[in-house]
């Protein structure tokens, strides 16, 4: 049996850690019934994806992609990849926009249903549907 390739493990452990974080967020979204908690889980998932992207752009021995002020670029200096930073910058701002929209929806749901628990909302919905069916069948019965 081949021994564990430590270089490989150390080179990939960052990805694995971010995937663990991602899955924690995913678990919160799927398993928790509270809507606010779901949003927090979504945020955790999102941030983990951001960090995954940024870690792809990192170059060993590199520095932040900012030139010296006089613009005399020293070719010996290694800069990290600026492209993921730009994309993630955009993604963070879009992320806060979706989060705020989700939270506003939660406030509306709470107003309409009086609860922010998924189970209770489903129960109320079911009762409403049953009532609809009953009314409908009454109307049909009168006709018959």
């Amino acid at each position: 049996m081949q021994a564990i390739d430590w270089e490989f493990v150390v080179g990939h452990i960052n990805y694995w850690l971010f995937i663990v974080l991602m899955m924690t967020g995913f678990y919160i979204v799927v398993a928790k019934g509270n809507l606010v908690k779901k949003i927090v889980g979504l945020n955790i998932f999102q941030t983990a994806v951001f960090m995954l992207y940024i870690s792809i752009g990192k170059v060993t021995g590199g520095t932040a992609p900012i030139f010296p002020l006089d613009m005399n670029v020293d070719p010996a200096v290694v800069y990290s990849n600026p492209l993921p930073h730009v994309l993630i910058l955009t993604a963070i701002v879009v992320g806060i926009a979706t989060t705020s929209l989700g939270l506003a929806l939660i406030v509306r749901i709470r107003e309409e249903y009086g609860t922010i628990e998924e189970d209770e909302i489903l129960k109320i919905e079911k009762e409403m549907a049953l009532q609809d069916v009953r009314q409908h069948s009454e109307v049909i019965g009168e006709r018959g």
Partner: protein
Amino acid sequence: MLVATALAVVRTQSLFATAMLSGVFSLLSALLLVVLDAVDVAFTEAAVGAGISTVLMLGTLALTRRFESAPSHSPAIPLFVVLVTGATLIYGTLDMPNFGSATAPAQVHVAPEYLERSVHEIGVPNIVTAILASYRGFDTLGETAVVFTAGIGVLLLLSGLRRRRRNKREDV
């Protein structure tokens, strides 16, 4: 520490604590981003993630309630789904280049060109700013459009909240 914070979010039932923990999570991730050379992203994450979203979260809690009820169904199926997804993702990373490798595909494609050309084409010391505002200007325009739309959506959803409340009180 990040993992510990995320797990604490899973465990706690107080939504107030959840909001605070998500702020802590954002701040820690901002620190990590500084280590990864992404200072601009770290600024944004600290301001937006730890600042604005915590405030929004607290505002929502003020309008709704503070505690979540205990889960009614077993966590076995979600746990299984999550584990399978995670295993698939980890399998996907096996092909990826080592962390910090300078010869990774992401590093040799267009990034060096941006680094080279923005010096005399844009002349802004911060390359992230140069790309964000110039090379990918339309992207940023689209982003502002998204934020604007979200703002309108929030306003529409929340407008009349006070009016409706007053009506309800008069009905009672």
